[in-house]
């Protein structure tokens, strides 16, 4: 069985082609390509512009994917697309493309929940059987565990997603959005040494990030670390990184931009690891799987690894090819559903901004 997956719930458009061999052996990735809409430093991606980007790229990417996979249209069994959750306009443009291909080629459609896509891809790549899942990205922050045919949400953010918190702080500091704001924060944080006091907000299994963002934005403003000017200076100072490191030796000195990134990461990741650990203790699981764009952050993976080791378990994480939104994860989850007979009739092949992980009936697991 061969399926095409189309993803475009945020600023990435991805097309992937998966093969599920008939004999039931491990599924194979035939093609996984993606194009990212990058907005200028200091700005986020707007739905309108992102949708335009997706519309411009979708046909090209599908063609390219088919070529890379060496698959002809006849061999394709189904077209899987992201039904939600995500940004409205980008989701719509991909749903329209999926419907168009379905009519053009006479293939059946499978609407996929984006979060379930992440989980299924993570499980496939890492081989984790029944892990507690931490799903962290620009739009979602959830701790999920599987129980009786549902991916149940144990804890989640009460306001903004952790990736959104990092991205918006990157905007405050005018850190480039290329390849990703979170990635650039991670690199800058490596030079940070001094831990700045930030709020630490865990409510039971849930957490909250908007207050932390406001606090660190305020700190950046009061230390005069935000804005374009400082970003330029920082870029110039990169060559003199050694000098900056010396400056940091003094613990009481004024925090640097790197220190703020460092402190933000340390604080929010500690919160995430804490709620994940609580979920693991509660369900008695020793495996933890990190998925979503923020999951490619190596500091988060490291912290999670230490926590899992101390519990006698292990952490499963994937790299940016599978962590960050992509088409194959949609194909993977869609084909699992397709295999159990799930279809999305053309009439219902719409998209929705609100689609909770626990709404999906997971028929393919027991």
């Amino acid at each position, binding site marked *: 069985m061969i399926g095409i997956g189309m993803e475009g719930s945020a600023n990435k458009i991805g097309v992937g082609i998966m093969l599920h061999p008939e004999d039931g052996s491990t599924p194979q990735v035939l093609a996984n390509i993606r194009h990212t809409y990058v907005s200028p430093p200091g700005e986020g991606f707007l739905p309108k512009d992102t949708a335009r980007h997706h519309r411009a790229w979708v046909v090209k990417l599908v063609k390219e994917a088919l070529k890379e996979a060496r698959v002809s249209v006849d061999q394709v069994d189904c077209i899987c697309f992201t039904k*939600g*959750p995500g940004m409205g306009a980008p989701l719509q443009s991909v749903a329209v493309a999926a419907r168009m291909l379905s009519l053009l080629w006479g293939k059946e459609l499978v609407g996929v929940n984006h979060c379930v896509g992440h989980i299924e891809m993570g499980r496939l790549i890492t081989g984790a059987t029944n892990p507690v899942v931490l799903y962290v990205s620009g739009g*979602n922050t959830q701790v999920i*565990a599987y*129980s*009786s045919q549902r991916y*149940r*949400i*144990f804890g*989640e*953010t*009460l306001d903004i*997603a952790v990736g959104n918190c990092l991205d918006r702080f990157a905007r405050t500091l005018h850190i480039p959005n290329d390849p990703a704001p979170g990635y650039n924060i991670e690199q800058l944080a490596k030079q940070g040494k001094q*831990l700045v006091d930030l709020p*630490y907000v*865990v*409510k*039971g*299994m*849930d957490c909250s990030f908007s207050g932390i963002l406001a606090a660190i934005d305020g700190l950046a403003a009061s230390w005069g670390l935000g804005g374009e000017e400082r970003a330029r200076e920082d870029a110039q100072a990169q060559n003199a990184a050694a000098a900056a490191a010396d400056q940091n030796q003094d613990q009481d000195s004024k925090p640097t931009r790197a220190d703020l990134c460092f402190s933000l990461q*340390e*604080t929010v990741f*500690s919160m995430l*690891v*804490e709620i994940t*650990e*609580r979920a*693991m*203790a*509660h*369900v008695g699981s020793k495996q933890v799987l990190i998925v979503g764009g923020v999951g490619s952050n190596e500091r988060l993976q*490291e*912290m*999670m690894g*230490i*926590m899992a*080791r*101390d*519990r*006698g378990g*292990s952490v499963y994480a994937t790299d940016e090819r599978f962590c960050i939104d992509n088409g194959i994860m949609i194909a993977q989850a869609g084909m699992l559903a397709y295999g159990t007979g799930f279809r999305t009739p053309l009439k219902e092949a719409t998209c929705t*901004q*609100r*689609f*909770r992980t626990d*709404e999906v009936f997971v028929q393919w697991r027991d």
Partner: protein
Amino acid sequence: MAEYKPPTLPSPFTNTTPPPTLLTQGAEAHVYKTASLDPAIPAALKIRPSKPYRHPILDRRLTRQRIIQEARCLFKLIKEGVSVPGVLALDWEGHGGAESGWGGAWLLMEWVEGAVVRVVLERWEAWMKQNEASLNPVQREREEASARALLKRMGATIGALHKAGVIHGDLTTSNLMLRGSPQDNTATTTTENGASMKGDIVLIDFGLASQSVQDEDRAVDLYVLERAIGSTHPRSEPFFDALVQGYRESHRGAPSTLKRLEDVRMRGRKRSMIG
């Protein structure tokens, strides 16, 4: 994978006889069974080891804050007559007697003999699943009524807690105990009248507790429990209204808290906006 070793015990627990036995590794702390002063007096020792994944400064701040907060809340609740384990001793500085310090903190509490509600409910759900077919409607109703009664008593206990001005912060069925209930999971569950669900409810693990009398905090407390029951005991989920009823009758502020609970339920991201 690296071999797992539980963290070493702080002094003075390194040389007590018999040595403390590890009961559970919670998310935040390890709980040991040990003795207080006299080997005949059992006690629960809660150790919050330092969390190596966290930045040392942040770790210190959180560990210290939480153990002190926990002891304060327990102390207050004992005074108010709420059913919680009493505080026997604590160390928040984390020296463990040594100068160097081990970064953690510990709290010694009164021993509660019994099982956690999670085990009790799991036992009941398993039993129901097994015997569902052979039950007649009357028996079935009786079984469900005893589960409801348990949840109602839980609600009343939580009400007493809130009335005393304390928020638990992490209410799950693992943090509620049934005093006197057999701990053993294999214990016979064939009692027809659900006798295994009798006993006093004791609240434990105040690691995330805080002091507040606001409806918002109280409602979030209840919501956390509601979700925990939904995700761990799907069969008992429909009985949550019994818990709400028990809570409603517990203190005067309860109705307004429950009203707030309705609002809290509507939060969370990406909920369907129908209705």
